[in-house]
């Protein structure tokens, strides 16, 4: 019976990626000099199940590669090999490589990365180096052969395969094994001498045959042995090999030595490649794809189904709630069927409706809960990132993770990771000093970066704290003056100077390094966070360190909104961005020469955007004095929005306009109101940039 395995592959990918995550975190925590048995076992098990799974699904590239990992880990586990930091490095690189392999598999494109061959070679070399003391002769000979084979490429293998008499009874079919061998190279199968019993004594389920196989292949012995993995206990198999091209034999020995010489260089090379991939961050996948054929890339457009793993508790809760909802519905249905509604049934109707409201709210909350994942999913990548970049920069870093259990909506999590990576990278690069500098300042040699997450009201706060140098206000101010962002005579408060780093095109990095100064600045970080309806704040003290505070809504699906009327149109303004709303006295309105208007609010002058103008609507209030000004926050600056009327406040479910239409400037989405009509949600930041009043405050000052 043919089973379509592809339906399970998604699950396999997820499990494998989880396995890789586990491997990575165990590897990072590992004390190389005194490795914990349990940790090694965890790493081994992850590699083992990835190997098994990928072989089942026919992902031979992954299977072959993880087999190497497994072999090495097995030897470490059995104490036959001492764990070294080289092992740790190569295993970590393998984790990255496997992630890329899975990425390619999921997009159904060919995986083609020179790193694979390099690491494979490294592994083979490492395995050849031999284990401690108790090596078997077989391992020895096989390693010799592998080296030889590496130099010359193709080998002629003679395989003496004496199948055990019970091989068929155990469900093993030599034919399938031969077929597998045939895929490795050119195979010829001959029946060897065998003893078969008298016809009457033949057991039809027994196997009396032996084979002599000849295979020309460039695959290592390990790979050949793998074919016979399941039957090696019951069969006798002897491998012997001859190089195919005899005249080159003399050269081969010298080749081997030179190969060994270059391996270390290649290792360095591969690390450079790795660093490149890391520093490119989000571009990572793109880079690795460039090698593959363009045709394959277009195939990658097959829709990616993303899935989520949910704890069974959450599902149980949901089922309970639906149960209660059904009961309430039945109760209301009964009342509905009554011919006459008396006072008594009116009371129970009211009760029923109240219950319904409670259940609906609970249900909504629990459904939202399903999308919630602990933030450790996002935090988990940082130990590795910090380790790699710290090494690269020669800085000693201790990473502290706090509040990893804090839950966050999956979509928010996916979008917040990139800005966080950027901030952590910045802290490492600009924030933390080198060990020498730290010692000179009387600080501990090892710097600390803390990632902290916690809930506050309806928001989640993520903090990125370092105890590094802090922001150099003088330098920032000079740079800003150079770029004309700040007037030469102008004096700014420390806070205002800190805000400057969020300006587009602002970078304090003197030279463009791998890590920073490539134009993806803090402005992009802030924009990304603003797009999530969040905000970012910065506190920094010179020589004490910096603290970035990101505040985000818990979910992107629901929003507390203020309904406002502009002419005949109803819009929703996110409640989080509203400071206050007020009617403005005509005396507090100033008109600038360029037509923009400012209002005086206490000691501040705020620019006002006339929403009806930006949206080309007609409206009741054409002048500021006739309408209401809503003071909103855009990029940490206050702006007034002129609207006609404030309506109710309510939670709204956010719907995408882009699904069926386009992105609309000034509008972040749509929602459906109680009466079934659609209302658009105002994107305050977008509206501000539409109105083009970013520099108005400077004009006013």
């Amino acid at each position, binding site marked *: 019976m043919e089973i379509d395995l592809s339906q399970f592959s998604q699950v396999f990918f997820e499990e494998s990626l989880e396995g890789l995550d586990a491997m990575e975190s165990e590897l990072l925590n590992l004390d190389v000099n005194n490795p914990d048995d349990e940790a090694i076992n965890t790493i081994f098990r992850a590699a083992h199940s990835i190997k098994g799974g990928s072989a089942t699904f026919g992902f031979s590239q992954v299977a072959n590669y993880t087999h190497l990992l497994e072999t090495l880990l097995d030897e470490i586990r059995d104490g036959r090999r001492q764990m070294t930091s080289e092992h740790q490095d190569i295993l970590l690189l393998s984790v990255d490589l496997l992630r890329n392999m899975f990425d390619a598999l999921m997009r159904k494109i060919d995986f083609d990365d020179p790193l694979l061959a390099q690491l494979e070679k490294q592994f083979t070399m490492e395995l050849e180096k031999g284990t401690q003391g108790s090596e078997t002769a077989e391992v020895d000979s096989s390693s010799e052969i592998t080296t030889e084979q590496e130099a010359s490429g193709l080998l002629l293998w003679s395989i003496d395969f004496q199948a055990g008499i019970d091989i068929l009874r155990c469900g093993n079919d030599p034919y399938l094994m031969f077929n597998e061998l045939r895929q490795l190279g050119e195979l010829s199968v001959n029946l060897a001498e065998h003893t078969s019993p008298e016809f009457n004594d033949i057991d039809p389920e027994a196997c009396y045959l032996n084979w002599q196989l000849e295979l020309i292949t460039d695959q290592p012995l390990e790979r050949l042995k793998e074919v016979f993995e399941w039957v090696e206990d019951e069969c006798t198999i002897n491998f012997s090999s001859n190089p195919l091209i005899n005249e080159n034999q003399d050269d081969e020995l010298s080749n081997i030595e030179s190969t060994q010489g270059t391996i270390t260089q290649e290792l360095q090379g591969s690390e450079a490649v790795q660093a490149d991939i890391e520093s490119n961050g989000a571009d990572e996948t793109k880079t690795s794809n460039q090698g593959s054929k363009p045709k394959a890339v277009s195939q990658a*457009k097959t829709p990616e189904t993303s899935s989520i793993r949910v704890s069974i508790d959450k599902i149980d809760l949901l089922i309970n709630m639906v149960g209660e909802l059904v009961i309430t519905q039945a109760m209301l249905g009964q009342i509905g069927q009554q011919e006459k509604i008396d006072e008594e049934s009116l009371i129970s109707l009211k009760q029923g409706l109240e219950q319904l409201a409670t259940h609906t709210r609970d249900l909504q909350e629990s459904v939202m809960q399903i999308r919630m994942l602990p933030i450790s999913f996002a935090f988990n990548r940082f130990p590795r990132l910090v380790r790699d970049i710290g090494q690269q920069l020669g800085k000693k870093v201790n990473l502290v993770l706090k509040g990893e259990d804090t839950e966050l909506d999956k979509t928010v999590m996916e979008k917040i990771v990139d800005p966080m990576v950027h901030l952590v990278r910045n802290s490492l690069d600009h924030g933390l000093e080198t060990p020498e500098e730290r010692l000179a300042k009387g600080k501990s040699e090892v710097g600390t970066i803390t990632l902290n997450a916690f809930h506050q009201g309806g928001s989640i706060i993520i903090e990125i704290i370092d105890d590094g140098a802090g922001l150099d206000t003088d330098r920032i101010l000079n740079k800003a003056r150079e770029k004309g962002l700040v007037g030469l005579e102008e004096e700014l408060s420390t806070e205002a100077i800190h805000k400057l780093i969020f300006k587009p095109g602002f970078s304090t990095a003197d030279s463009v390094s791998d890590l920073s100064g490539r134009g993806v600045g803090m402005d992009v970080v802030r924009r990304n966070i603003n797009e999530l309806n969040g905000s970012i704040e910065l506190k920094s003290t010179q020589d004490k360190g910096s603290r970035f505070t990101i505040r985000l809504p818990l979910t992107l699906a629901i929003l507390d909104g203020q309904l406002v009327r502009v002419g005949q*149109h109803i819009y929703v303004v996110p409640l989080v961005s509203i400071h206050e709303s007020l009617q403005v006295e005509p005396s507090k309105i100033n008109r600038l020469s360029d037509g923009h208007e400012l209002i005086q609010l206490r000691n501040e002058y705020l620019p006002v955007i006339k929403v009806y103008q*930006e*949206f*080309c*609507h007609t409206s009741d209030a054409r002048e500021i004095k006739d309408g209401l000004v809503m003071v909103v926050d855009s990029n940490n600056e206050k702006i007034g929005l002129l609207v006609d009327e404030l309506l109710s406040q309510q939670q709204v479910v956010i*719907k*995408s*306009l882009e*699904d*069926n*239409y386009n992105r*609309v*400037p*000034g*509008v972040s989405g*749509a929602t*459906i109101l109680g009466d*079934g*009509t*659609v*209302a*658009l949600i105002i994107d305050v930041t977008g509206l501000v940039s539409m109105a083009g009043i970013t520099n108005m405050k400077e004009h006013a000052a």
Partner: protein
Amino acid sequence: MTEQIQNEQPQHDHGIKQDNDEDSQQYLTFIMANEEYGVEILSVQEIRGWESTTVIPNAPSHVKGVINLRGTIVPIIDLRQRFGIEVLDYGATTVVIVVKVAIANEHKVIGIVVDAVSDVFSVNNDDVREAPNFGEGTDLSFIKGLTNASDKMVILLDINMLLGSEVLPEAEQLSNLINTLDAPQQQVVNA
């Protein structure tokens, strides 16, 4: 060639053909400015009456706004305005045909406002003539072809191209086109 086409004319019965083989497709036809247009029935999701929409700020004039279609936000496009034909007041027969289209590999649901819905025809693929070539500058990729149904010419639209393309012919070009298409068959073929 000319003969062949003329001979095929009377084969179309009004209404749905019973023999629905692979060679024929069903089309929903609608009327707009006295012309009959057809869209593949498989792309039609539903037909609704006109209802007021929520206006999208700064949208082109043919985008009438968005409606709530059982929880989905669906944009509504006035096809008359899209073609630059004179706008009519929406009346009792004004309908919105909700279609599913594939634009740039994405499936979108869009409503189009037309004067009235006409009929459903089964059209044999062999009976679809290619739209005549109007020379350079007139992009007719949104016209799938022409066919005849109950002695009336039907312009079969490629809904994906129609709603996906940024540039559509202006009113003048379109009316020229329709006039030419309306002209006797022979002329069209010889053109």
